[in-house]
């Protein structure tokens, strides 16, 4: 792993009596694409604003390249921010917007002109230099905002839900664009979003946050395949979260039926939450699987069918390329390596799941 760029040490922040971030520590490496992912109010934007210098933490330190910048104002930090609503200066042209930071730091005219050209080319907006801000579309404004930030050659780029206001098609295009930019520029991105698909698509590291805590941190694959708690499992993709108990290592009791699994170390007869992704549920003829049930709903989603199957008193969410009509008797089975076991949440707080997308 490359060297450390940003370290958050035991950051806490509250507004009035509302605790936004609680003792959060996080290390971000050079050239990493880190996404802070969580529902609104989870503290992700506040974390970003603390790194950007717009908020001061109540306690804890922010280190940038090993230097304490907790109380350094934003204009003295070697990083730039792309704001949620673009925040382009309406009284300036596109080129003047991009030149803003360079003019402040008193770069030569030649240097500024070259940089404007380079930045506009990078975001595919070469012909727009002299246009006014309100004559271009939202997606184009977003590109200009990115260009304006990167011409200053920051070590770190902070992006606060930059694609939130764009339509789906444009959002997907911009995702590829951002990955390309990050690779071309070789700078670190910290990206805030509530959109799990964005997070999984672009990131090297995903930090799932809820209620001011980091719930889980890891590669997109590990977050998706091995959620550590019910919140992460529910927030990332669709899943069946079923209460059960570990009978012994590698054997779990789900709804009264014993399933083989691959997890161990939970003790014997311990209550757990079991996560099974809907695409991992295998439907078969009655009696062929671990338990029998009946299809209650089916919708066609394009790539696959999404069905609900009532079995063992639980409504299973199932995705399959083969559809079964409502009312059909089916059996359910799951491969052992697709059963993910999680500890029961210790407190009410952790259990609270807010999915307000």
């Amino acid at each position: 792993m490359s060297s450390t760029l940003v370290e958050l040490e035991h950051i806490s922040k509250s507004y009035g009596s509302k605790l936004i971030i609680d003792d959060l520590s996080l290390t971000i490496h050079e050239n990493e694409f880190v996404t802070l992912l969580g529902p609104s109010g989870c503290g992700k934007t506040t974390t970003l604003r603390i790194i950007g210098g717009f908020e001061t933490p109540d306690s804890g330190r922010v280190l940038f390249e090993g230097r304490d910048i907790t109380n350094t104002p934003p204009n003295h930090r070697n990083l730039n921010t792309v704001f949620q609503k673009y925040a382009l200066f309406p009284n300036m042209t596109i080129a003047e917007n991009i030149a803003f930071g360079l003019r402040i730091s008193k770069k030569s005219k030649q240097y500024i002109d070259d940089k404007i050209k380079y930045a506009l080319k990078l975001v595919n907006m070469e012909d727009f230099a002299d246009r006014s801000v309100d004559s271009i579309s939202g997606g184009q404004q977003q590109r200009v905002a990115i260009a304006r930030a990167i011409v200053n050659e920051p070590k770190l780029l902070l992006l606060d839900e930059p694609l939130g206001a764009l339509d789906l098609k444009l959002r997907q295009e911009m995702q590829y664009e951002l990955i390309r930019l990050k690779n071309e520029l070789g700078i670190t991105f910290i990206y805030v979003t509530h959109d799990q698909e964005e997070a999984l698509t672009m990131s090297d590291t995903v930090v799932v946050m809820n209620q001011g805590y980091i719930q889980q941190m890891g590669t997109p694959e590990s977050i998706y395949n091995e959620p550590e708690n019910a919140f992460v499992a529910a927030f990332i993709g669709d899943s069946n979260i079923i209460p059960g108990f570990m009978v012994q290592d590698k054997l779990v009791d789900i709804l009264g039926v014993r399933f083989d699994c691959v997890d161990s170390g939970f003790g014997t007869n311990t209550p757990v939450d079991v996560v099974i992704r809907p695409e991992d549920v295998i439907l078969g003829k009655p009696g062929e699987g671990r338990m029998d049930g009946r299809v209650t709903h089916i919708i066609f989603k394009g790539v696959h069918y999404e069905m609900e199957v009532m079995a063992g008193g639980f409504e299973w969410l199932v995705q399959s390329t083969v559809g079964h009509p409502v009312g059909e008797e089916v059996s359910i089975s799951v491969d052992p390596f697709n059963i993910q076991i999680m500890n029961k949440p210790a407190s009410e707080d952790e259990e609270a799941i807010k999915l307000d997308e």
Partner: protein
Amino acid sequence: MNKRSFTAPYIIWIIGGTLIPLAMMFYYGLTDESGTWTLQNILAIFEPGNLRALWKSLLYSAACTVVCLLLSYPIALILRNVKRAKGVIVFIFLLPMWVNFLLRTMAWQVLLEKGGVINGILGWIGLPKARLINTPGAIIMGMVYDFLPFMLLPINNVLSKVPNSLTEAAYDLGASKTQVITKVLLPLSVPGIVSGITMVFVPALTTFVISNMLGGGKILLIGNIIEQEFTVGDNWNLGAGLSIVMMIFILVSMAFIAKFDKKGEGLA
């Protein structure tokens, strides 16, 4: 009733309140007492006494506008960052506007006059009496007091609409706090400044009540001269002629100002 008939009251209002008086003003201004067409009432502005009054009016109203701007802008900048009780603070600034304009000016008379409140206090702490009333300072003071809200409101309106993300973006791009003001807030508040200047400069230019009450009839502004032609002098023709000159003056300055406020954003 068709839709058009709803506009009748306004058409009557415009004809009775604007067009007829304007026509009469032009008629009186462009004729002499015998009713013959003449330009002498217009050209009368070049008489030394009238020219001096016009010059004084321009000077005092310019001074008043500058003072109002210098007082209002910092307040509006501070109000931008006030989160709680912002409405209350603006309300306090506007409160004097609810008292009749004449009464407010009279109050200054009571404060400033020879045996007035301020001189009373000066005498009480053993200082010599100061000549406060009937000075240019008193007139400008009175103008600032009366017209300040008209400067503060449009500037506050424009500044409070500038999103925080813009100032944060400037700050993020390396601007100091002063540069955030000079490079972002100031250019974006030009429409408010322009409309504030219009709303203070124009009434200050033509006022005669303030100069009458706080200038003691010794300092004549162009407004006083026009007023006197209508009342004491009984020369409506000259009064109307000078009014036309003032109107042209104001129209020209408005046209000039409108150049800066293309979108009309500042007009609250």
